[in-house]
C-alpha cells in the first residue's frame, strides 16, 4: 500500500514528457554550454524512454525525484525504470545527465535489465565536463595554468567502452515486452533527465556528405584557433602544455614559459575529449589544417574522432590518424583521394576531438580476450607444476590438460594472424609487433612439444607480462596540438618562420638559460607580505601541483608569499641546527616529528586554540604517531594501511569466499596451496601488529616505559603470526603485483596504495579484482575486530620559525578537506591514476575518485586501523620484530631445530627495554 502511494506520488511529480528525438539540425546554439550536448541521435523513437514519463518504479538509497523532472541518484544509490520494447533487437544506451559536482573522476554507473548485466560489463563510464579559464599571460613572465572548474550542464552520451577496445557503444539485446532497468551510481552522483535505448546508426560516408553539400562554395576566409585556448574538456588530465622546442609554435617566447599547446602525453585515454569554439567568418566549404606532434609512441599513429557541433559529419573522421614523429607536423584532414571539405555556416561552432583507438581497436580487443585466456591456461599449468617447475620431468601435459593444449595452439595461430593484420593496418614496422610474434612462436613451440612447457614456463610468464604492457601502451593515443586552422584553401596559407628564425630562437634560449631561474615560480617576488618558507621532500611533480595551489589559493587568501622548495630528506637536521631551516616541513615520516619534538625543535600544535576542532578532520590512528605526552607535533597528510585484495574471477571459479577472520584465511591458504597458488600477508611489524592488535595486545606499556610484547597477548600473538609462515608456508618475500596478475597469488593483505599499481600496470585484470577490509578476529560478542597497523606522513611546524601563527594557518589550509582533495585530484590528473593520493583527511577521502564500494571498504578499514605509538627509542621495536621473524623463519626453512617463537621474542625483550630506558633517561622522562 505504502509502495503504491509512493509510486503514485512520483508519477504526479514527473509531469511532462520531453521530446525524445533530438536529431542533428543546422541550428546552432551559440551558448556553448547547451550546444555541446547536442549529439547526433538518429533515434528510433519507439524504444526511447524518458525518465520523466512516469516510468520510475522504485528508488533505492538516497535517490530522489527532483522538482524539475529529473531523477537524482547520489553515489551508492540506485533507481529502477520500467521500459516497454515493441521490437526485439540490439540497442545502445544513451543518457541525458548532469554530474553532481565535486567528487572528481568520471561517473560510473552499473546498469542491469531485469537484474541482468546484458552487455557483460559491470560498469559504464559517463564523463564530467570541465571548463577552463583564460591562460594568465604577461610579458616576460611565465604563464600559469588557468583555473579549471567543473560544469553542471546537461550532456547526452552513449554508454561507451572506456578501455577503447570498442569504437561503437555497447549494445544490449532486449526482447519485446516490459523490462525493468536498474541504474546504480557506483562512482559519483548524477542527475538523469532522460535515458533511452536506441538503434545505433553509423554516420554516412564522405561521398554522400560532399554530394549533399555540392552546391556550397569554397570561401576565401580563414580562422585559426590556438589549441591551448579550448572551451571544455571531459578529463582533468588534459591541460595546456608548454612547448619550447620549436620556434614555430604559437605563441612562443624564449625568455618565458608559454603555455602554447594542449595535450601531449596526458591526453591519451580513450574517450577523453577537448572542445574548441571557433567563430567562422562566412558560410562555405572549409578545409581543416592542424599543427600537431605525436612523439610519445614511436612509429605508430594516434587516432581522434572529430565532432562538429556534437555530431560526426561523416564516417571517415571517426578515426583520423595522426602519424608519429619526433617533430611537429602539419596536416590537412583528408584521405588519399584529397582533402575533406567541411561545410560550416557563419557563426560560432564547436569542434571536438575525442580519443579513440580507431582502426586497431578490434585487433586489440581480440588480443585482450586471448590474453585473459592465456592467463587462465598459465594457471592451469602452474597447478600441475608448481611455481618452479622441474625442467627435467615429463609432466605429460598431453594427458593432464589436453583441451588447454589444443586451445593454446589455436591461440598461437590466431596471434600470428593478428600480427599480420596489425602490420597491414598500421603500416608500422615489424618491431612494433615483435612481442606478438615472440609469444605466438613460443606457444607453438610449446604445443608442438609439450615436454618443453616446463622449461619455457618462466619465459612464457614474462612474455605474457610484456604483452599486457604492449596492449596497455597500444590503446594509449597521445597527441599534442598547437593550432587548428579553418581555411577556404586546400593548402595551409599561414606564415612559416624560416631556418634563421629557428636558429635565432635557439640562440635566445641559450642566453635565457643564463638569466632565467627555472625553479622560482609565483609569489617569491612579493616583498610586502610575510614570506613563509616551506620545504617538501617529495618529487617535482608534487611540488608543481602544490605550488600552483599555493599561488592561486593561499597567497591571495592569506596575503602571504610562499617560498616552496624541494629538499632531500637529510637536509632538515643540519639546517635547523644552523638556524636556516624552513617554517614548515612537509612529508615527514611517522617517526620524525617526535624525534625532533623531544629535542625541542618542532612546535606543539595543541598550543593553537582551534587545534582540537581541526584535528577531528583526521582519522585518529593517523594522528597517533605524532602524539607524545599529551602533545601533538604534526598533523597527517597521508595515511595508509593494509587492505585485502582478491581476484574475483579465481575466487568464483573455485568457489572460495573472502575470508572474514584470520582462521578463515588460514583455511583459504591451505586450499590455495593445494592448487599451487599462495597468498600474502605483511612481513614484520605490520603483520605482527595486525595479529597483536586483533588479540587485544599492545606494543608498549604506558607512555613507552617498556615494551608489552612479553605479556601473554604479545607472546601468543607472535606465535600465531609465525605459524602463518612456518605452518601455513606463506612466502616471506614476493612480488605481489606480478603474481596477482598471473593469478598465482589470487589474494593477499597489502597496503592499499598497491591499488594504484594494480590499476595502472595490470590492465588485463581490470574489474576482476576487489579491495575489501582485511580478515579479522572474532570477538566473544560475535563482532569481527579488523585492527591493523597504519602509517602516516605528516606536516610539522619548526619551532624556531618566527611566523608561528601564519604557519599554523598554512597547515590548516593545506590539510583542509578542500585543498587535500583538490591536491589529490590534480596530482592524479597530472600523473595519472598511479598517483592516487591517500589523504588522511576523512572528508577529503570521500571526495577522491574512489568508487562507492571502495570508499566504504576504505573507511571501514581506516576506522579499525591503529598506529604504533612513537616513543623515544621506538625504532628498536621494529628492528627486533624483524630479527625475531627472521630467526624463526630461517630456522624453520632449514629444517634444523625449529625455534620456539615465544622464546625468540623473549630473547629480545631486555634489549628493547634497555634501549627504551636509556632514551627516556636521556630526555629526562
Amino acid at each position: 500500500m505504502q509502495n503504491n502511494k509512493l509510486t503514485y506520488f512520483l508519477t504526479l511529480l514527473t509531469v511532462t514528457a520531453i521530446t525524445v528525438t533530438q536529431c542533428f539540425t543546422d541550428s546552432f546554439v551559440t551558448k556553448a554550454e547547451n550546444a555541446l550536448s547536442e549529439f547526433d541521435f538518429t533515434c528510433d523513437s519507439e524504444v526511447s524512454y524518458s525518465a520523466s514519463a512516469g516510468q520510475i518504479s522504485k528508488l533505492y538509497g538516497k535517490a530522489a525525484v527532483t522538482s524539475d523532472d529529473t531523477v537524482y541518484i547520489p553515489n551508492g544509490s540506485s533507481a529502477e525504470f520500467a521500459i516497454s520494447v515493441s521490437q526485439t533487437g540490439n540497442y545502445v544506451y544513451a543518457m541525458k545527465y548532469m554530474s553532481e559536482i565535486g567528487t572528481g573522476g568520471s561517473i560510473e554507473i552499473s546498469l542491469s535489465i531485469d537484474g541482468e548485466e546484458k552487455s557483460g560489463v559491470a560498469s559504464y563510464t559517463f564523463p564530467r565536463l570541465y571548463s577552463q579559464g583564460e591562460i594568465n599571460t604577461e610579458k616576460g613572465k611565465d604563464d600559469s595554468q588557468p583555473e579549471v572548474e567543473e560544469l553542471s550542464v546537461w550532456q547526452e552520451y552513449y554508454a561507451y567502452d572506456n578501455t577503447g577496445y570498442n569504437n561503437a557503444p555497447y549494445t544490449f539485446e532486449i526482447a519485446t515486452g516490459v523490462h525493468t532497468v536498474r541504474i546504480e551510481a557506483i562512482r559519483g552522483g548524477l542527475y538523469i533527465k532522460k535515458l533511452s535505448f536506441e538503434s545505433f546508426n553509423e554516420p554516412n560516408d564522405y561521398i554522400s556528405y560532399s554530394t549533399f553539400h555540392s552546391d556550397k562554395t569554397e570561401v576565401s576566409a580563414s580562422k585559426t584557433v590556438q589549441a591551448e585556448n579550448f572551451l571544455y574538456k571531459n578529463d582533468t588530465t588534459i591541460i595546456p602544455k608548454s612547448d619550447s622546442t620549436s620556434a614555430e609554435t604559437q605563441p612562443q617566447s624564449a625568455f618565458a614559459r608559454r603555455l602554447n599547446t594542449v595535450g601531449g602525453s596526458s591526453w591519451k585515454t580513450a574517450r577523453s575529449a577537448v572542445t574548441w569554439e571557433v567563430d567562422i567568418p562566412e558560410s562555405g566549404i572549409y578545409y581543416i589544417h592542424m599543427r600537431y606532434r605525436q612523439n610519445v609512441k614511436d612509429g605508430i599513429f594516434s587516432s581522434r574522432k572529430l565532432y562538429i557541433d556534437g555530431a560526426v559529419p561523416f564516417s571517415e573522421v571517426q578515426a583520423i590518424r595522426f602519424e608519429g614523429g619526433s617533430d611537429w607536423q602539419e596536416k590537412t584532414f583528408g584521405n588519399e583521394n584529397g582533402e575533406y571539405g567541411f561545410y560550416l555556416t557563419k557563426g560560432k561552432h564547436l569542434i571536438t576531438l575525442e580519443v579513440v583507438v580507431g582502426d586497431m581497436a578490434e585487433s586489440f580487443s581480440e588480443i585482450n580476450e586471448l590474453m585473459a585466456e592465456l592467463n587462465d591456461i598459465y594457471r592451469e599449468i602452474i597447478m600441475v607444476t608448481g611455481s618452479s617447475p622441474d625442467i627435467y620431468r615429463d609432466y605429460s601435459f598431453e594427458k593432464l590438460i589436453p583441451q588447454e593444449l589444443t586451445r593454446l595452439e589455436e591461440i598461437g595461430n590466431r596471434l600470428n594472424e593478428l600480427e599480420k593484420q596489425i602490420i597491414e593496418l598500421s603500416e608500422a614496422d615489424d618491431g612494433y609487433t615483435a612481442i606478438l610474434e615472440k609469444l605466438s612462436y613460443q606457444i607453438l613451440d610449446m604445443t608442438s612439444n609439450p615436454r618443453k612447457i616446463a622449461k619455457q614456463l618462466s619465459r612464457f610468464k614474462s612474455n605474457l607480462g610484456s604483452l599486457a604492457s604492449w596492449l596497455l601502451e597500444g590503446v594509449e593515443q597521445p597527441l599534442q596540438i598547437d593550432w587548428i586552422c579553418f581555411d577556404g584553401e586546400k593548402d595551409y596559407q599561414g606564415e612559416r618562420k624560416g631556418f634563421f628564425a629557428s636558429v635565432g630562437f635557439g640562440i635566445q634560449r641559450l642566453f635565457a638559460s643564463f638569466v632565467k631561474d627555472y625553479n622560482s615560480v609565483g609569489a617569491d617576488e612579493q616583498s610586502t607580505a610575510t614570506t613563509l618558507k616551506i620545504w617538501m621532500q617529495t618529487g617535482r611533480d608534487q611540488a608543481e601541483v602544490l605550488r600552483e595551489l599555493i599561488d592561486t589559493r593561499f597567497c591571495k587568501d592569506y596575503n602571504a608569499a610562499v617560498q616552496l622548495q624541494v629538499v632531500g630528506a637529510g637536509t632538515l637536521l643540519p639546517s635547523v641546527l644552523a638556524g636556516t631551516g624552513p617554517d614548515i616541513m612537509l612529508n615527514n615520516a611517522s617517526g620524525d616529528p617526535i624525534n625532533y619534538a623531544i629535542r625541542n625543535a618542532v612546535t606543539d600544535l595543541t598550543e593553537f586554540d582551534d587545534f582540537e576542532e581541526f584535528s577531528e578532520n583526521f582519522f585518529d590512528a593517523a594522528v597517533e604517531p605524532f602524539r607524545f605526552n599529551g602533545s601533538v607535533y604534526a598533523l597527517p597528510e597521508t595515511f595508509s594501511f593494509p587492505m585485502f585484495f582478491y581476484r574475483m574471477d579465481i575466487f568464483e571459479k573455485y568457489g572460495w569466499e573472502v575470508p572474514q577472520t584470520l582462521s578463515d584465511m588460514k583455511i583459504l591458504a591451505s586450499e590455495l596451496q593445494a592448487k599451487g597458488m599462495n597468498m600474502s600477508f605483511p612481513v614484520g611489524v605490520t603483520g605482527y601488529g595486525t595479529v597483536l592488535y586483533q588479540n587485544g595486545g599492545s606494543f608498549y606499556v604506558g607512555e613507552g616505559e617498556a615494551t608489552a610484547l612479553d605479556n601473554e597477548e604479545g607472546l601468543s600473538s607472535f606465535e600465531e603470526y609465525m605459524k602463518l609462515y612456518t605452518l601455513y608456508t606463506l612466502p616471506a618475500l614476493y612480488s605481489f603485483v606480478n603474481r596477482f596478475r598471473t593469478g598465482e597469488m589470487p589474494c593477499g593483505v597489502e597496503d592499499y596504495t598497491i591499488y594504484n599499481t594494480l590499476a595502472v600496470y595490470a590492465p588485463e585484470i581490470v574489474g576482476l579484482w576487489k579491495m575489501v577490509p582485511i580478515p579479522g578476529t572474532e570477538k566473544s560478542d560475535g563482532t569481527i575486530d579488523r585492527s591493523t597497523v597504519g602509517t602516516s606522513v605528516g606536516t610539522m611546524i619548526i619551532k624556531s620559525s618566527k611566523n608561528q601563527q601564519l604557519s599554523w594557518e598554512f597547515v590548516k589550509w593545506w590539510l583542509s578537506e578542500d585543498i587535500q582533495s583538490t591536491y589529490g585530484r590534480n596530482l592524479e590528473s597530472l600523473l595519472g591514476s598511479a598517483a592516487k593520493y591517500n589523504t588522511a583527511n576523512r572528508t577529503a577521502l570521500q571526495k577522491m575518485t574512489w568508487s562507492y564500494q571502495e570508499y566504504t571498504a576504505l573507511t571501514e578499514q581506516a576506522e579499525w586501523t591503529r598506529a604504533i605509538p612513537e616513543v623515544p627509542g621506538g625504532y628498536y621495536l621494529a628492528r627486533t620484530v624483524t630479527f625475531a621473524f627472521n630467526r624463526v623463519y630461517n630456522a624453520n626453512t632449514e629444517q634444523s631445530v625449529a625455534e620456539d617463537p615465544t622464546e625468540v621474542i623473549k630473547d629480545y625483550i631486555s634489549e628493547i627495554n634497555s634501549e627504551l630506558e636509556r632514551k627516556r633517561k636521556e630526555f629526562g622522562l
Partner: protein
Amino acid sequence: MQKNISDAKKMSVFRQMGRKKICYLFSLPYMIFFFTFTVFPVIISVILSFTDFNMLEMPSFVGFSNYIHLFFNDSIFVKAIKNTVVLAVAVGPGGYILSLLFAWFINELSPKLRALVTLLFYAPSIAGNGYMIWQIMFSSDEYGYVNSILLRFGMIQEPILWFSNTKYMMMLIIVISLWSSMGTGFLSLIAGFQGMDKAYYEAAAIDGIKNRFQELWYITLPMMKPQLMFSAVMSITSSFSVGPLITALCGYPSTDYAVHTIMNHLTDYGTLRYEMGYASAIATVLFLVMIFSNTLIKRLIGKVGQ
C-alpha cells in the same frame, strides 16, 4: 748558546718558507679545502666525542663516558668490531692480493685485449650500485635465481632468505665486496706494471733470475712500491668502511647484527638516534684503527723484495 741555535733554526724555517713562498701559494687552495673539509671535521669529531650532543641542542661535556660506554657496555659495538675485522681481513688483503694478481695477469695480455679486460674488472666499482644485481641473484623470493635453481634440483624445500639468514650473510657480503673491490688501486697497479722499464728485466735475466715469480718479487714489485702503497691504503680503508653495501643488501640493521660493521654502528647512532657525541666516539675509534692499520701496511710493504 743552545737557545740561539734553536732560534736560528726557527728563523731558518720561516726564512725557508719565505724563500719558497710561491710553492706555498700554489698549494694554498688545496690546503684550505683540505683543512676545512678533512682536518677540521676530524678535530671537531674528536672534540664532540667527549660530549653529549643530540644535534639540535647545545652539546654538553661528559668526559670519557662515551668511550666507557662504547667499550664496556655496548655489546653491539663489540659485534661490530668483530664483523669489521673479519671483513677487513678478508676483503682488504684479499682484495689487494686479487688486484695485484689480476693486474699482473692482465699485463701479459695484448694491449687491445688488456683494455677490454681492465674495463671488465674495473666496471663493478664504477657501476656504483652495481652490487644490486646480487640482490636479484640471491633474491629471497622463490623466483630468485639461486633459490629457483636450488628448488629445482630439490636441494631446498623453501626459498632461503639469503640476506637475512645469519648463516649466509657474512659469506655473501665478503664475496660481493671482493667482486667490487677492483677500484682505483687496481688501476694504479696496472699503470705501475705498464710503466716498467724493460731494460731491468734484461739486466735481471743476465744476473740470474730464474722464473717469472722471481722477476715479480725482486724487480717488478720493488719498483712499484708507490703504487703498491697507494693500492694497499685504498683497499684497507675501503674495507673498513663497507657500510652502504651492507645496508642496501641486508637491510638496516642486518638481522641480529650479523654483518653490522663499525660504519653501520656509526650511522645507527649518528642519524637514527641523533647521538652525535657517541657516534663521534665511534668515528674516532674507527679513525685510530685505520691509522694503525695504515702504519702496519707501510711496514709490510717496506719488506717487499727483501
